[in-house]
């Protein structure tokens, strides 16, 4: 029959729409308020206070799990890296052979210059600032966590204040400069990468001595720019850029002198600009950081 309404037999009492909607709103409301409270506390006092200490404790509890996750993923990353390197092996080998010839010549000249430099320093009783790598020890650490979104450029490493890591400690990989420590807990630390918007490092061109600031690039997340280089100074494609490690009477750079950052890939200048436009390809691969060295001063100073 058309249009006949049949009552379905009741099988238990289903919750009414009003109760269910109210429950939904209450639950999501509580969770949103809780999240906002956590954001407020964490933002206002990121390094001390009850929320920071609770986060520190919780991160220590999670640490074994993140390390285990890292170890599970490592073989897969190795396989991917191996396959990826095969694709570029031929061009890499050609480039490295050419680089090797140039470096061999340069090493001989550098040896002469270094000997002469040592003699002159001894004559002048020259007092120098801390140098890399002689005045630093490197704490090797695995990267145990990475941000989930593209808006954060930092990683978490498995060493903390218990291991001697201090805030603002420079962090490097075997290839070059990576970033600095921006948050320290007892057994872990957060490292902000040089590709982050808020990080910049004073640097110089090894060949010409031109000084400037290296910071994130505009072209892509993994490209850097060598900024604030006056137009009269000379910077050429292929030049190596290292940390400047300057020191004045009261202030000193956070980073020691001589950590390799990258190689110049393009140089330009416009009449209307005050500075040169220099792009730098970093030596460190910011997208695939598995292990780092956190630099700690040998003399114990921060």
């Amino acid at each position, binding site marked *: 029959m058309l249009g006949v309404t049949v009552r379905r037999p009741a099988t238990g009492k289903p919750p009414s729409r009003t109760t269910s909607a109210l429950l939904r709103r209450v639950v*999501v409301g509580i969770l949103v308020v809780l999240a*906002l409270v956590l954001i407020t506390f964490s933002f206002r006092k990121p390094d001390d206070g009850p929320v920071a200490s609770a986060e520190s404790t919780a991160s220590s509890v999670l640490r074994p799990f993140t390390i285990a996750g890292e170890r599970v993923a490592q073989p897969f990353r190795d396989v991917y890296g191996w396959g990826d390197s095969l694709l570029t092996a031929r061009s890499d080998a050609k480039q490295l052979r050419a680089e090797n010839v140039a470096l061999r010549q340069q090493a001989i000249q550098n040896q002469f210059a270094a000997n002469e430099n040592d003699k002159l320093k001894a004559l002048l009783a020259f007092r120098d600032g801390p140098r890399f790598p002689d005045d630093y020890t490197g704490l090797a650490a695995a990267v145990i966590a990475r941000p989930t979104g*593209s808006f954060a450029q930092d990683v978490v490493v498995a060493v903390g204040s218990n291991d001697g890591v201090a805030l603002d400690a420079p962090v490097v990989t075997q290839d070059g400069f990576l970033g600095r420590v921006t*948050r320290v807990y007892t057994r872990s630390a957060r490292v902000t990468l040089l590709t982050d918007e*808020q990080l910049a490092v004073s640097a110089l061109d090894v060949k010409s001595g031109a000084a400037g600031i290296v910071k994130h690039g505009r072209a892509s997340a993994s490209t850097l720019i060598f900024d604030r280089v006056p137009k009269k100074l000379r910077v050429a494609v292929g030049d190596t850029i290292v940390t400047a490690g300057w020191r004045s009477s009261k202030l000193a750079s956070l980073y020691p002198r001589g950590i390799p950052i990258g190689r110049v890939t393009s140089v330009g200048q416009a009449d209307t600009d005050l500075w040169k436009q220099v792009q730098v390809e970093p030596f460190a691969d910011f997208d695939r950081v598995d292990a780092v060295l956190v630099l700690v001063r040998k003399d114990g100073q921060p």
Partner: protein
Amino acid sequence: MSVGTGVRIGLIVFVVAIMQVSAFSSVSIAGGGPNVLLVTLVAIALLRGAVTGAIAGFAAGLIVDIATLGTLGLTALLLTLAGFWAGRYGETTGRARAHAPLAATLAATLFVELGGYGLHSLLGEPVAARTVLAALPAALTWNAALTYPVFGLVRRLIGATERLERAREVEILV
């Protein structure tokens, strides 16, 4: 929802959150990588409803914030809202539609990426919009590709819920 299902959802969220920060986040092809945690959360929310989605999102976000030593509550807020919305979508418009997981995942990815950018900007952290926009196509592609495998796996593990808002009366048309 039974205690066993709740425990299973908790375990899934915990394991996937840990794997996301320690393994999946390091995958970067064409400027972006997969957010398996978000895809899993959307699947849980679609299968189990808005309340479960919101709670799972909050827990997952909190784990991510703690593990990455980020601003506590930031990811939790984003994932709570994403889980809640996906759950409501599953309970209403997306009910029994084949494309619901894909549509919900894409919308949640857009929300989390752009919402994350907005929240970081509100907190005064320097964030480049171009970085987020450049990573967005790859993130959407990755997450879309993972949607149905992850959805199928999560459904096998936790099952689908019975709809709470059942019709009390049926009209028979002969």
